[in-house]
């Protein structure tokens, strides 16, 4: 009998809901605003009152198709469907979504780590209202109730469904980050997980390493940060493995991430798709975008983050993964411009990554950045001085000369240092001779003298190099 340890791998598919940043809702003219007074943006249509009829918001469709094209999806003729279920967050008792013929299908997203995640579909649907559970006080046998705010009911959403090809919690987070970068770049949503305008459900299952089967999955909801996404996936993975190793099987079910407890909890058993009794929404006619419309959308798309990474990486001469942070922060154009002006690529990238990790870096110009970097690489500014100057430029803008003057940094160039060293050698002939004879302690004496003459502004490393050159 062999006692081999079974190795498991996790299989993850993500459903990302993105609220579109239109002015009005998907099917009515109510304002699409987060944080308004409860039930102030409601009307007969989004309340599902009898006699009301939905009319599709043109901007929502355009934004949805723009997102689809940005994800490399095919945009097709599409229809809306009713998904029937009873829950107080949907006053109509059905949600209008797209089922059999979604607007966007078969796309992919290239991630910063070099991997590619296939996207099955990105369909349009309406958001639900917001329910808040009010717990009982324990005296009335734990009775509780819920309060419903329909301001969010009918807000346009795109649900982006990945194929089950994500293989780790880390990759899942990278995928959501990349999706967020794309969504922000094309301005279709503010994509804030903390406000719920971007929400992630994770379908998680495990299987023996080397197998290509898809086992029973659980769908984890209520994930409201990237950190929770990683923790929830890791928790579910462990739970599934433990069940299999105990000879049991996980149930196909919805589970809720409990942030405080750091675990997932039982939800209801997942209904079959059949139980939603989808059927074509009779109140809405099909969407049939023209080729010209799709071409115009393609024309309007800014370069993708993946393309921007490749472009910057080539300009700087590094791997695309090494420029991911700078591109994510939207600082790639600054870097390209500075390098275009003549600044050293690797040094520019390092300075942006380390010194521009701030909320607002709009005051620093590419000219100024290129100037600082070039002064640093040619020894006119020490590394420490360069960092101070960049901080000054971020704070107040202006030119490097202005910041240097404000900070009282005496820009010391190598030429001046050579002159100073010559003078010092004349003044201290004995010390120089002893240094030349190998008394290394005296190097510190000469460096110290130059530091004194420059009020500490000279770059110690450069001074040492100059001394070494003179000794040769």
């Amino acid at each position, binding site marked *: 009998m062999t006692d081999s340890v079974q190795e498991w791998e996790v299989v993850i598919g993500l459903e990302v809901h993105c609220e579109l940043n*239109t*002015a*009005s809702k998907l099917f*009515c*003219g*109510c*304002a699409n605003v987060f944080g308004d*007074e*409860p*039930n*102030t*943006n*409601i*009307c*007969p249509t989004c*309340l599902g009152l009898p006699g009301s009829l939905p*009319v*599709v*918001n*043109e*901007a929502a*469709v355009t934004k949805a198709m723009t997102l689809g094209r940005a994800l490399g999806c095919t945009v097709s*003729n599409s*229809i809306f469907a009713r*998904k*029937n*279920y009873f*829950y*107080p*967050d*949907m006053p109509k008792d059905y949600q209008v979504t797209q089922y059999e*013929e979604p607007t966007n299908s078969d796309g992919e997203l290239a991630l910063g780590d070099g991997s590619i995640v296939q996207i099955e579909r990105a369909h349009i649907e309406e958001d*639900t209202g917001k*329910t*808040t559970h*009010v717990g009982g006080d324990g005296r009335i046998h734990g*009775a*509780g*109730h*819920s*309060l*419903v*705010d*329909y301001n969010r009911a009918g807000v346009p959403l795109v649900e982006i469904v990945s194929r089950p090809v994500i293989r780790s919690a880390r990759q899942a987070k990278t995928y959501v980050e990349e999706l967020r970068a794309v969504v922000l770049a094309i301005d279709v949503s503010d994509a804030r997980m903390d406000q719920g305008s971007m929400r992630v459900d994770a379908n998680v299952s495990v299987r023996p390493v080397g197998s290509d089967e898809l086992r029973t999955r659980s769908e984890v*909801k209520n994930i409201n940060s990237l950190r929770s996404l990683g923790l929830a996936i890791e928790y579910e993975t462990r739970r599934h493995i433990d069940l299999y190793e105990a000879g049991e099987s996980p149930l196909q079910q*919805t589970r*809720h991430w409990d942030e405080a407890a750091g675990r997932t909890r039982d*939800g*209801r058993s997942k209904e079959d798709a059949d*139980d*939603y*009794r989808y059927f*074509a929404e*009779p109140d*809405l*006619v*099909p*969407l*049939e*975008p023209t080729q010209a419309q799709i071409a115009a959308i393609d024309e309007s798309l800014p370069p993708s983050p993946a393309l921007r990474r490749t472009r910057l990486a080539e300009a700087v001469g590094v791997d695309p993964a090494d420029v991911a942070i700078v591109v994510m922060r939207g600082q790639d154009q600054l870097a390209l411009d500075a390098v275009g002006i003549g600044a050293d690529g690797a040094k520019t990238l390092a300075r942006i990554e380390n010194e521009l990790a701030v909320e607002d870096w709009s005051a620093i110009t590419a000219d100024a950045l290129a100037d600082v970097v070039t002064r640093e690489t040619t020894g006119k500014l020490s590394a420490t001085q360069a960092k101070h100057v960049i901080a000054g430029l971020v704070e107040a803008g202006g030119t490097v000369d202005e910041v240097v003057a404000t900070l009282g940094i005496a820009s010391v160039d190598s030429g001046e240092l050579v002159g100073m060293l010559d003078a010092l050698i004349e003044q201290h002939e004995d010390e120089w001779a002893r240094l030349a004879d190998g008394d290394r302690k005296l190097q510190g004496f000469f460096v110290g003298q130059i530091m004194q003459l420059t009020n500490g502004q000279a770059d110690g490393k450069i001074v040492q190099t100059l001394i070494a050159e003179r000794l040769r």
Partner: protein
Amino acid sequence: MQLMSERITRDEVAHVADLARLALSSDELDRFTTQLSDVLEHAADVEALDLSDVEPMAHPLPLVNVLRPDAIVRSVDRDAVLAEAPDVEEDQFRVPTILGDQP
């Protein structure tokens, strides 16, 4: 029961009734099983036709792309709506806690 049709079972009718939140008596389940089977029998007649030349359609009207501009239209007055609600708290609709979760 005459013609306990194979089109739909009594259990399926009970399941659909449950999804639709309908409480049906045993007699009603029998009756609706027969009636729904008749409806499905009729659908089967249509299915039996050769429709390979007919384009599938999602809507009977020859209309596509009925859209409205993205403009905010003043919403109804909150108090008027809440006045119609069975129960209200903090300007929201107050509902019983629902067992189970939303899909």
